[in-house]
């Protein structure tokens, strides 16, 4: 389920679309990508940053090592710097810009502020997207599960606060009425 698997397995999936105009669904919006500016092999990160100008998703290493580029593709956290556009296809992409909104922030965004997590902040988009995908799959992750799921790099050392912020939202699934939980779902 990691991005690298996606990247490896997905390269040929959308070959038939190569000649058509490419379409990309990002944050609930369909984008026509002009053939002359994108290429099926272009990693999603650079489509987001340089073509769609969605710069909230960051470049950190380009080799899927740091996770600054983490976004959701069909609800899964993926490292977009190594995920070619051809592997995304029609799957919905969600970026930090649509994790929440100003009026309705994602619970993690509120927790991030409550725990005063960010310092320089550069890695935090990727951290939040990784954490949101984790909580969507596992509403009550243990410290070990958090460690295993979030392998992103932060040079400011915000890890202890990230863990605390995630844990502050973690709750045993059955104990909480469904209405109080806000599972981060990709917008339709």
């Amino acid at each position, binding site marked *: 389920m990691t991005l690298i698997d996606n990247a490896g397995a997905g390269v040929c999936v959308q070959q038939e679309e190569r000649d058509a105009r490419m379409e990309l669904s990002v944050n609930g919006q369909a984008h026509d990508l002009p053939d002359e500016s994108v290429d099926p092999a272009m990693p999603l990160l650079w489509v987001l940053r340089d073509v769609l100008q969605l710069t909230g998703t960051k470049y950190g290493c380009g080799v899927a090592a740091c996770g600054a580029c983490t976004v959701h593709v069909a609800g899964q956290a993926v490292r977009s710097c190594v995920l070619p556009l051809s592997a995304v296809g029609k799957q919905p992409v969600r970026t930090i810009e649509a994790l929440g909104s100003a009026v309705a922030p994602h619970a993690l965004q509120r927790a991030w502020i409550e725990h005063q*997590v960010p310092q320089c902040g550069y890695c935090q988009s990727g951290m939040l997207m990784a954490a949101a995908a984790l909580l969507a799959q596992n509403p009550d992750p243990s410290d070990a599960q958090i460690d295993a799921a979030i392998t992103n790099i932060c040079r400011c050392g915000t890890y202890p606060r*990230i863990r605390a912020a995630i844990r502050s939202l973690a709750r045993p699934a059955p104990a909480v009425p469904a209405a109080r939980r806000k599972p981060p779902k990709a917008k339709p």
Partner: protein
Amino acid sequence: MKRRGFVLGAIGSGAALIVGWGAMPQRSRLGTRSTLPAQADGIALNGWIRIAPDGGVLLAMPRVEMGQGVHTALPMLVAEELDLPLARVRLVPAAAETIYGNVALFLAALPFHPSEEEPGRESGRLKAGRWIVGKLARELGLSVTGGSTSVVDAWELLRYAAATARAQLLGAAALQWKLPVSELNAEDGVVSHSSGPRAHYGQFAAAAAGTPVSDVQPKPRSAWKLIGTAAPRTDLAGKVDGSARYGIDVRLPEMVYGVLSMGPTLGGSPGTMKTDAALRVSGVERVVQIGGDTGTNAGVVVLARSTWHARRGLAALEVEWRPPPARLIDSERIAVALEAVAREERGLAFRSRGDVDAAESAAARRIEAVYHAPYLAHAAMEPISCTARVAGGKVEIWASTQVPDFARAAAAIAAGVPVDAVTLHVPYLGGGFGRRLDADFVGPAVRVAMETSGRPVQLIWPREEDIRHDFYRPAGVAVMSAGLDANGLPVSLRVTTAGDAVTPRWIERNLPWMAGPIDLPDKTTSEGLFDQPYGVPNQRIAHVATHSGVPVGYWRSVGHSHNAFFGESFIDELAHAAGRDPVDFRLALLADSPRHAEVLRLATQKAGWGSALPAGRARGVALHESFGSVVAWVAEVSIEAGVPRVHRVVCAVDCGTVVNPGIVAQQIESGVIFGLSAALHGRIDIVGSAVQQQNFPDYPVLKMADAPRIETHFVPSERPPGGMGEPGTPGIGPAVANALFGLTGVRARKLPLGAVNSGSP
């Protein structure tokens, strides 16, 4: 030589000039209304503060935000003095004016021993030195964010600027209402009188502007409402929703993306080049060669319609890289050479006390040890970039830089225009750690932008270029010996370190007109050793400054980053040699350093020093002062699969007056994790002038799974604030190393401590 003579002479005669030194510096840096011209969004009262029509404050902000929280801490000082909620202080970029220069940075460079620096008991020599250096620094007016000095520098100044503005506003209100100023009250930006009148600051700004500035005093400590509270950071909303803009996020109409390659070696240059294949890559526009004259290595830039297209073009480019003209650099050879000079040469003594030779020969025992530290890269999360637009004799640049004045100068030199023709925008910095104290990445971006007919260019260094072409934390070696008396207490301490001095190299690169024919002594080489706090009657603490040819730069906590490892490991060795508990041993030597003793006591008490631990775990301790703050670390460590694992770190800190304890705790956590990455994994190896590491897989840093629990405890203090951006870093390495000794009985004298999976992803 000439300049040094001048400075020393001035210090000698300076005593006569100290009179009146107290309040003047703040007054001279207040600026005037014209420094911060009145604009539609407010009326300037001085060079720092503009009052908005709604009564809020616009604060000129010359320091950059790179995670250290300065865009929260500095406005807090102003909000406190003006009795405003923090949210009503908005930041506006400061212009390039000398009043915004960082004076504290230069004062901190004076190599005085802490015994001369105790607030209220400063030596005459120190006062004179500070007077002359302060004057020079104010003339120079360099705006620098670094050296953990932002709050230190702003502490008196911003409170004075805000208190002055408040006095002017209240004076104007008193005049308008014909009421005695002493009867007026100010709260939440509203001036009022018990008889009824109420109005916010905006209504008095015009009348207050230009009124005489009386000598006001900032609030007494007892009146503080905001200073000392963990006020939430002001920069987080945009950092959790992706809207915060870093240098690399600049997007301009018609912008073209460039990717830089500087080749495999330090100082190499592109030779024969075949561009056909690169130019055939779709989206690639052109290939531009960068000479070595733009403040960086020579290299090649591919311009394309996206960063990715440019990288593809670069991959298709056939370049025959020429090796550097100088002798090839080899880091292993350097380490051997450093140890040799540290053993053979006396070096420059930064501290000399008593008679070390005599004490050593009379000592009951003599302990000697040699320690090594490697080169390190910064690897800030935001890769290096600069965006530039050159058109009509004007240059506009966007750069995440800690040195805005140097960035503008570099752009002006590259474009051949006067500095006034350069406009600089500084977005957020995605980490700095000292890397962005060099503006080497500006010149190349401007040069490339001169080739694009006015189209803006964003020039990005891929992560690999960042790691392979950094200004590295210099490698260092320490040869240390101590003579112990019959009770095991040290009667002599001799330390000779060797390594490149950062400051002279940095001055050569960034302030070439200040570079002399010889290197002046660089305090950073010996900091953390010459000023170590333990009472040893005979000391000689010296450094041999070398010229390795490796590009070296400031790296979070600079000399402290390795000197704390040397010093705090060695004192642990002495404790064990004496058969004493490492904490008791240190405390026995801290009779004349009560501040340090207090910090050590608090940390060890909170950590439960001496209490039982699970099997396989041990505690290690370290104590270190840097940037005016004293920190103690207690690390709980085990060994898992042959690799050290740090479970818990308890820190105590005395950083003087605490402006924002929340941010201080953040900086302790940050410093600990940054230092732990270096202590466990950090090493840059250079073979044949080629840096062997290039990205996070082979330059590993700490991740979530390795991050310990970290606690921060404060020793209350009413001293002026010390720095906090760096002091969390130096001691974690020795604390872990000292714990490892408890586990293994083997003393780790070489960094990094952990197994390094060099070369394998």
